[in-house]
């Protein structure tokens, strides 16, 4: 009964819920527009695209201080992306239930490396969020919740790697469904909104003559 619910209706509900609410939030951001700047422009329009890419690296002033967080952050994000879209069970699942077509999956060794990077990076960052007084102060309960929920989803996914037990696969799927429902309301939305926020900031400051 519970297994059927997780594998069927709950999966459909969470997937559609994620799509609709995330899209709605994105549309709200896009259609909201921005207040008209009254300052005299110092630069020609532009700067959004440059900022989107420039922000992939930390500011030079913070490079040394944030070195470990920088690498941990990249390890987590690259690992997660690889796991999400190129882990063999995910390719099979998505091709069967979402896209209707398949694509090459990671070999097992690459999956292991991606999982190590993602889990290690996220664990380190989640603990740093707790240990550093500044990041702790600027983090909300939702931020902590999102971090640990993503961690649990990845961990249970690795438990269920060989699909030897249906209960482990269902546990992973259930947590992934909870994450999909929680995603649009959390700071995890940055996965979809970061180009807009960076682009907006870049465009505004570029207009004022500042390249950030």
């Amino acid at each position, binding site marked *: 009964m519970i297994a059927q619910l997780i594998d069927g209706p709950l999966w459909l509900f969470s997937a559609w819920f994620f799509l609709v609410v995330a899209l709605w939030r994105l549309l709200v951001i896009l259609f909201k527009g921005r207040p008209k700047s009254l300052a005299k422009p110092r630069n020609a329009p532009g700067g959004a695209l440059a900022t989107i890419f420039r922000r992939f690296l930390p500011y030079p002033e913070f490079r040394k*201080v944030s070195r*470990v967080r920088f690498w941990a952050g990249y390890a987590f994000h690259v690992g997660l992306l690889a796991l999400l879209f190129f882990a063999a069970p995910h390719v099979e699942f998505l091709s069967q239930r979402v896209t209707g077509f398949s694509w090459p999956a990671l070999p097992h060794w690459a999956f*292991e490396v991606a*999982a*190590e990077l993602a*889990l*290690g990076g996220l*664990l*380190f960052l989640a*603990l*740093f969020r*707790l*240990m*550093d*007084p*500044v990041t702790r*102060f*600027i983090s909300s309960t939702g931020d902590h919740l999102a971090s640990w929920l993503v961690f649990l989803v990845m*961990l249970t996914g*690795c*438990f*269920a*790697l*060989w699909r*030897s*037990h249906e*209960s*482990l696969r269902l546990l992973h799927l259930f947590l992934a469904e909870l994450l999909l429902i929680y995603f649009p309301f959390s700071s995890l939305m940055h996965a979809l909104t970061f180009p807009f926020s960076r682009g907006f900031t870049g465009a505004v400051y570029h207009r004022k003559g500042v390249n950030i």
Partner: protein
Amino acid sequence: MSFRPPPCRRVTRSGWICWVLLAGLALLVADLPAAAPSHDKPSAKVDDPGTDLWRFVRRRAPELRSLAEKGAIGPVTTQVKGVDTSVLINDKGQEWRLYRHRMLIPISAIVLGTVAVLLLLLYLAVGRRVPDPRETGKRLLRFVAYERTLHWFMAAIFLFLGVTGLTILYGRPLLIPLVGKESFSAMASASKEGHNLFGPLFLVSLLLFLQRFWRRNLYSRGDLRWLIRLGGLLGGDSPPAGFFNMGEKMLFWLLIAVGLLICASGLVLLFPNFGQGRLLMEGAHLIHTLGAVLLLATIMAHIYMGIATKGAMDGMKGGYVEYSWARHHHREWADEEEKKGRVLSEEEVRRRFGEARKIGVPEREAGT
């Protein structure tokens, strides 16, 4: 209706031949000694070539090798090339299995259980130790955020590996009666996957830990005196110590040495595709288990010290420790910090945290 006997049939030539053959066969069978098993006589021993074959298969070397050299039998060959691919039955595997079940599991369980019970009894008997009840209202920064994160990163991985490893080791005798075979099967599978995945992360955390702390854990003057007095258990007051006392230094180097040994043996087990034979794998298994039991027992004592000594955990939680605690346990370090003017009042610490909270400036973290 009257009874009519069946008509006599004429026996054909082929029928006669059959009868003669059957009679001859009967005589032959009756004459064979083994044909009729006799229970009152011991049966004759007949060498079964299959027995020899399987004995050779089980032992393989050196009998087969010597026979092959003599030309009595052909060499042991297989189309599958690899370590032990020509071994069908491995007697050593059975010996290892029995050793694991009869020695390794019970003895390691007794060691871990005894340490846990002793520490619990000690805690119940002594309670939380309060080295200096006087709160001076002064604070010293002991560990910066990166160091605290690294410590808890390693601790989380170690505990996860401990739980999953113990599930694999003791699951059959301990968990199956509690959760049943099916649930345990899922738990064991998850534990194995998790253990394999987090093992290399433990190596990473170990190397980061070594890189960060090795210098502060080198032997320095006064460490031997601390050790002789067992950190104050003998002779009353706690002997002076630097940033780390000799007990902590010993724990550090034990963690590094045994941790690396566990990681190396774990990698041998994790990647069996590099040509290591069964004997090496069994040795690695043994080293892995013994090392893990030793580290688990040591870390249990470490956790006990952290919980049972008031103020010991503060440094790993918020980074700052009470000055009286530092003076009691790490007098030389506390004096050095005082000379450098790094002793902060509680208000100062609060103000620094407050500033950080207000404008996003990190706390003062020496050494970052």
